[in-house]
């Protein structure tokens, strides 16, 4: 069955799975909830890679559509993460201010 899958797709899938698992483990240790969009983007990217492989076996059109939907959602989560990152940037000048 694996002969039908292109080598680069398998490598992409393997890398995505490994990095997503490592990211899940490490991000789970990060304090705060502000990391969930990044973790979601990782997970959706892995889903996209799985769908890339799956489209060689079952319903290629549907898998292709779902793959792009997952990629769009991952991009949306990444955009949300970057937007929140800028919004949450602390005002360093306030921290430097001496209390009266």
């Amino acid at each position, binding site marked *: 069955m694996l002969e039908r899958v292109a080598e*680069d*797709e398998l*490598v*992409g*899938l393997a*890398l*995505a799975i490994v*990095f*997503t698992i*490592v*990211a899940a483990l*490490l*991000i789970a240790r*990060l304090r705060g909830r502000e*990391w969930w969009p*990044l973790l979601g*983007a*990782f997970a959706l*990217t892995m889903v*996209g*890679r799985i769908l*890339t492989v799956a489209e060689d076996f079952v319903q290629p*059109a549907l898998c*292709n*559509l779902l793959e*792009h*939907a997952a*990629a*769009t959602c991952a*991009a*949306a989560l*990444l*955009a949300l*993460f*970057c*937007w929140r*990152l*800028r919004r949450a*940037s*602390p005002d*360093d000048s306030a*921290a430097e201010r*001496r*209390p009266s």
Partner: protein
Amino acid sequence: MTMVVVILSALTLVLVLFSMVEALRTPPQTTGVPARVLLILAIMMLLVVAVGNLLEHGADNPLLDAFEGYTAAMAMPMLLFFALVLRMHREIRRAQRAAMRERRLRDELDHRVRNNLAAVLGLIDLTRRSDEPQSVASFAQLIRSRVLTLSTTHEILSACRGRPVDLRHLCEQMLATFASNDLLERVRVNGPAVQLETHLAAGLALPLHELIQPLTAARELQAHLTWQQTNGVLELSWRVRNGQSSNSSLGDRPSGISATSEEMIRGFVKHELHGRLAISQSPLDGWKCEIAFPLVEFSDSLPYDERL
């Protein structure tokens, strides 16, 4: 179906571009330069994937298709490293700020201790300069009473934790510092609820003490403390009347307040409260001391009359 895929690809491209813009707008001092570089590199890789998908499905040109899998996968560790570096950077900043806060707290503590010691030394000097002859015992008692007022004021301010202090509570506590049983009966306190900022409460405590203190020695005196608030200015009135027909012990000072105490009150009202003091005496009202000061903080350079 192809149209939907094209739309999704275009949407992905737009969102990744938005991420890139937001990442570039994030202040570098927040994420640190290495962290931001990782983030931007990862987004650039995803940008390549998004452009490749759009070219593949929109123009049917699989130009970047061969690189899509590797590029998308390689963007992941970069995002991961970014998260880790950002976390380390935030922890370092947090530790630096905690150390800075601790140093400032220590400096502030030193400053406050020096201030209090200077205040005690000032009280000793003022008491020693008193124009009236006094024994060692009375000198010690007066000093103790004044230092006790400082201590009580500190306790009140400490209990309020920086919040405003109720004026009536302050007056009651000042009266309570004197171990005189009938003092609460001889001093009437009337006035609306007024909240004093901590620096005003600290500045008013000792003048109140100096006004109340003579009543412990001269039991024939009765006092009436009233206040009102007008246009952000608090006006306190302290009236002292002799409860008995004859008064030989007080001499030419019917309030019982020494010249040193009066000087102290005047100094506190002028320099600590930035207010004004008026002392008058009439057969009808008795001895009257009026203190007026603004309840809001003004610039020191602005004269009091102009603030009104």
